[in-house]
């Protein structure tokens, strides 16, 4: 028979739409409108998981977000999602659910031996092991990790889309129960922009026992009527299945909406609201007694919800364990739904008979002063034993409902840094002082009565000071310490998800733990994915009892976002791949792609590394390009270099303050290389700046620092150097740039330079000319990065492809070779040019890099004062050197350190390689390295070693210039 525990009725299910699903490979059926949990219960399935530490069998305990046991893996393959609470998963046709943390099966799990060995796993087990003798942690750690399963990640990258959305509101209301609905209605009627978010599928909040009236209507009718009014208001947005998971500064809140629609799994809302109304309700409080974790033990409100909403009976004969008056009405309601009630067992002796009237009318047995001593049944409750002053006994039941009062959901209030106070009547913490613009209403503020909650919500919606909130909570007893330690050694659980027992709390107290923050970390109380929603308050109440103080003296742990677990996909949204950081392409990208370019992502830029020809290896291609530049001529796309246009009467003064060298004597039409420091003296950026006119300069920056240099200059101009009359404008994207390099570069350029005399005499090294090249408006800079005769030609970006084509045409007779950044890298390493981010790694001074000669002593510049600090001039700093591999066939390991001895085992690192390449010019690998007192080591034999690659290569220390140290080629 399918769904043997399905009763008649149920507000939410549609019996005309049966849905098939599987749990651990077995087929079941439920209905549209079910949650996975309600469908399992309708099928009589209670055993759904094994606990974290002891691998005890566990069943569904809650109805919604508070669930701590029923964490299942939902879906298969790339779409699988671990640790999903069955209580919040909407049932869909074909859904596949699997249990976690068990091996080989849920019913027969070898890990349950941990339960028998639990004396070995007391509170603080991890710390004690970690602090234990010798290698105890190393020995246990792999076993602990394997045993402590909390789900597996999906098999591959999640293929489903996730989304983010921003919204603004006058009022954001968290929670669509009575108070939240009332607040939304009031604010909506005032014409405010309202967002009402509720985590449940349907508005209305916690299940009601029946009989309660609001504004003259039964509660259910009032809810339906109010929801209809809200949906008719254009200024009110109602989001169901949407949890407010975090509240932050300045009215900012983050919401997670589960859409489960095809094409969108989940949407993250970022809401900025003027006012925040928290109507987050309360979670029913578990009771602590031996065996309170057995499958079939459930919160009473959850049992009521499963029956009234889904007609899913948690059992045929239920016992109710309580400490408060509210349980009697729940018992009556459950009875009226067709479930037998074995008894109500109340820890209290003296209960107002009026509160019990509804139960008495239905002839439900009531036992006062009853202490639960054990629960029978391992994989499903079969009965319980209790004792009382006048006797006690055993009750047969197949389900057990706990009703321990209510825990106001104060998380969001606390996240905004509102203060809390302990309420002696409610035996719970309540919001005390909120921050401005935040108000808690309804059960989360201690207003438990239905009509009061509506009044409270209405006042908040009107932004009016409410009449003093009424806190008519059903009378309740505090948590019973006596009951928690019944049953001699049987475990009474406080935190189901993390397997924290009452005995663990007692042990921690005896070991001297006083602070609840320490207790939490020592016992792991409240550190599961449920963050102690069910167990946290009981844990600190027990600690207070053990310490003999009031719970208010123990306090609570800090509530941090998110309120419920958030899928990574929701946080990521579309911000991955190109959506996170769009790639930037130069104007020539399509040409590169069509000509064999092998691309590389450098920061956000996509650039050709080299151009492969048929049959070539990567190294063959790079060697070919490098040798073409050294012996003939090559051309490269360098459009990505940062360019800043600097204009104004004080432009030269600005350069003087930014760069270490002097700029005031630079003539119009000439250019100069400069290095820029951070204020702490470390090299920050470098590049060539050209003087285009009297008050007009063009600065080039490294590709990766183009934005950072602008921010650096802007900050100085807007604070310390406000008096300078100068404008700095980033123009990187406005200009395309190509560099011609090689002994024959001039010959090629001369063919296309219209009216620009490019002879060495007319245009020497480090000069600039504006004019026309190949019919295009152009600036031509003679400068060199490769060490060869070289010209960089800039044209407006749109003219880039035309310039490139005309250069190629002009160079065809000379076999002009296109080359990429990998080849450019080899050329600059051979020439010993430092690169920001490699040699200048943020820890190198100009002197470390051999650039002290560029530091003027006659003027101030950013970073100058730091260069004489003791730490920056101490001997033994790492200095830039060249390394030449001794045996030409050796290959340098990647990320190598430089050491003195060519042996295995630990030894002092003298420094590290910053850049390396195979030099076709030298016919062997070379490197640039930062080595301690490197300039004193010229000619020394050292070793480049990588412990991970287990290699050690002999190298000779040399000057960091391998080609043309005199620079004759530049001036050719």
């Amino acid at each position: 028979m399918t769904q043997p525990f399905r009763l008649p009725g149920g507000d939410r299910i549609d019996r005309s739409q049966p849905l098939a699903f599987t749990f651990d490979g077995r087929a079941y059926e439920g209905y549209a409108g079910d949650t996975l949990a309600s469908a399992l219960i309708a099928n009589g399935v209670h055993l759904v998981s094994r606990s974290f530490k002891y691998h005890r069998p566990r069943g569904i305990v809650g109805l919604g977000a508070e669930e701590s046991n029923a964490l299942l893996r939902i879906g298969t393959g790339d779409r699988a999602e671990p640790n999903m609470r069955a209580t919040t998963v909407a049932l869909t046709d074909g859904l596949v659910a699997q249990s976690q943390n068990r091996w080989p099966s849920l019913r027969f799990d070898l890990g349950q031996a941990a339960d028998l060995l639990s004396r070995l796993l007391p509170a603080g087990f991890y710390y004690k092991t970690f602090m234990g003798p010798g290698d105890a942690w190393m020995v246990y750690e792999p076993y602990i990790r394997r045993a402590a399963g909390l789900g597996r990640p999906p098999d591959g990258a999640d293929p489903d889309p996730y989304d983010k959305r921003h919204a603004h509101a006058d009022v954001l209301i968290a929670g669509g129960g009575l108070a939240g609905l009332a607040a939304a209605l009031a604010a909506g009627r005032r014409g405010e922009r309202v967002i009402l978010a509720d985590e449940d599928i349907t508005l209305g909040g916690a299940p009601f026992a029946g009989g309660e009236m609001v504004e003259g209507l039964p509660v259910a009718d009032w809810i339906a009527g109010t929801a209809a009014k809200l949906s008719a208001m254009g200024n009110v947005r109602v989001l169901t299945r949407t949890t407010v998971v975090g509240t932050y500064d300045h009215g900012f809140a983050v919401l997670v909406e589960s859409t489960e629609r095809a094409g969108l799994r989940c949407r993250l809302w970022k809401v900025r609201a003027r006012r925040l109304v928290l109507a987050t309700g309360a979670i029913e409080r578990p009771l602590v007694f031996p065996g309170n974790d057995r499958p079939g033990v459930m919160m009473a409100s959850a049992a009521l919800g499963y029956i009234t909403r889904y007609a899913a009976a948690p059992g045929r004969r239920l016992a109710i364990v309580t400490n408060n008056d509210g349980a009697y009405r729940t018992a009556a309601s459950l009875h009226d739904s067709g479930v037998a009630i074995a008894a109500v067992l109340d820890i209290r002796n003296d209960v107002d008979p009026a509160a019990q009237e509804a139960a008495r009318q239905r002839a439900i047995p009531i036992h006062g002063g009853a202490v639960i001593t054990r629960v029978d049944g391992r994989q499903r409750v079969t009965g319980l034993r209790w004792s009382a002053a006048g006797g006690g006994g055993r009750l047969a039941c197949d389900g057990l409902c706990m009703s321990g009062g209510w825990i106001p959901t104060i998380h969001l209030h606390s996240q905004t840094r509102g203060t809390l106070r302990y309420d002696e009547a409610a035996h719970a913490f309540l919001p005390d002082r909120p921050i401005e613009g935040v108000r808690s209403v309804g059960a989360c503020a201690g207003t438990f009565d239905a009509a009061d909650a509506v009044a409270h919500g209405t006042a908040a919606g009107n932004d009016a000071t409410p009449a003093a909130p009424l806190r008519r909570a059903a009378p309740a007893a505090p948590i019973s310490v006596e009951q928690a330690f019944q049953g001699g050694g049987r475990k009474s659980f406080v935190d189901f998800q993390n397997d924290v027992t009452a005995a663990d709390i007692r042990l921690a107290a005896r070991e001297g733990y006083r602070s609840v923050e320490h207790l939490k970390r020592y016992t792991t109380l409240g550190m599961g994915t449920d963050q102690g929603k069910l167990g946290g308050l009981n844990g600190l109440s027990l600690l207070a009892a053990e310490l003999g103080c009031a719970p208010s003296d123990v306090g609570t742990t800090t509530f941090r976002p998110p309120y419920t677990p958030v899928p990574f996909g929701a946080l990521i949204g579309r911000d991955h791949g190109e959506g996170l950081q769009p790639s930037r392409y130069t104007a020539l990208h399509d040409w590169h792609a069509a000509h064999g370019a092998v691309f590389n992502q450098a920061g956000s830029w996509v650039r050709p590394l080299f151009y492969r020809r048929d049959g070539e290896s990567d190294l063959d291609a790079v060697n070919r390009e490098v040798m073409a530049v050294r012996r003939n001529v090559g051309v490269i796309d360098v459009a990505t270099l940062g360019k800043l246009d600097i204009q104004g009467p004080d432009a030269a003064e600005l350069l003087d303050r930014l760069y270490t060298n002097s700029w005031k004597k630079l003539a119009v039409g000439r250019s100069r290389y400069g290095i820029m420091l951070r204020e702490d003296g470390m090299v920050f950026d470098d590049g060539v700046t050209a003087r285009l006119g009297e008050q007009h300069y063009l600065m080039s920056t490294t590709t990766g620092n183009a934005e950072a240099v602008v921010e650096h200059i802007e900050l100085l101009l807007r604070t310390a150097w406000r008096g300078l009359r100068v404008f700095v404008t980033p123009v990187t994207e406005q200009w395309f740039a190509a560099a011609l390099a090689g002994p024959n570069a001039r010959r090629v350029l001369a063919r296309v330079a219209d009216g620009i005399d490019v002879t060495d005499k007319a245009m020497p090294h480090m000069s600039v000319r504006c004019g026309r090249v190949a019919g295009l408006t152009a600036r031509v800079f003679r400068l060199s990065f490769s060490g060869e005769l070289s010209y960089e030609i800039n044209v407006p970006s749109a003219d880039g492809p035309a310039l490139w084509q005309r250069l190629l045409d002009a160079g065809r007779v000379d076999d002009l070779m296109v080359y990429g950044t990998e080849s450019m890298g080899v050329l600059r390493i051979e020439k010993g040019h430092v690169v920001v981010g490699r040699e200048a790694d943020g820890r190198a001074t100009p002197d470390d890099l051999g650039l002290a000669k560029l530091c003027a002593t006659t003027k101030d510049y950013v970073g100058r004062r730091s260069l004489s600090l003791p730490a920056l001039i101490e001997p033994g700093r790492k200095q830039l050197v060249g390394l030449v591999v001794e045996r030409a066939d050796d290959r340098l390991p990647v990320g190598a350190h430089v050491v003195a001895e060519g042996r295995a085992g630990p030894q002092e690192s003298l420094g590290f390689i910053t850049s390396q390449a195979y030099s076709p010019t030298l016919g062997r690998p070379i490197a640039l390295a930062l080595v301690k007192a490197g300039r004193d080591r010229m000619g020394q034999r050292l070793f480049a070693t990588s412990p991970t690659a287990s290699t050690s290569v002999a190298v000779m220390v040399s000057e960091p210039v391998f080609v043309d140290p005199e620079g004759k080629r530049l001036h050719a």
Partner: protein
Amino acid sequence: MLSIRCPVCGPRDEDEFVFGGDASAVRPADPMACDDQAWTAFLYRRDNPAGPHDELWFHRFGCRRWLRVRRDTRSHAIVAPPLLAEDAGAP
């Protein structure tokens, strides 16, 4: 997440901005006249007040201007309208 009212762009989310640190740490007019202690104090030493704090924020994904923002470190409230850094007086 803070909402910062940029004088150019209006109220914008914090994640459009980059924090630039304590606005009172202004570069000395004559660094070479500083002894090592005074200079390293400028480089590294910052007060950490519980209360109003003048700080620099750069509107990187907006107008690309530096702002001076006065923020209460206890409540994160921005206690005065932010100004462009060049319009702000000495902190």
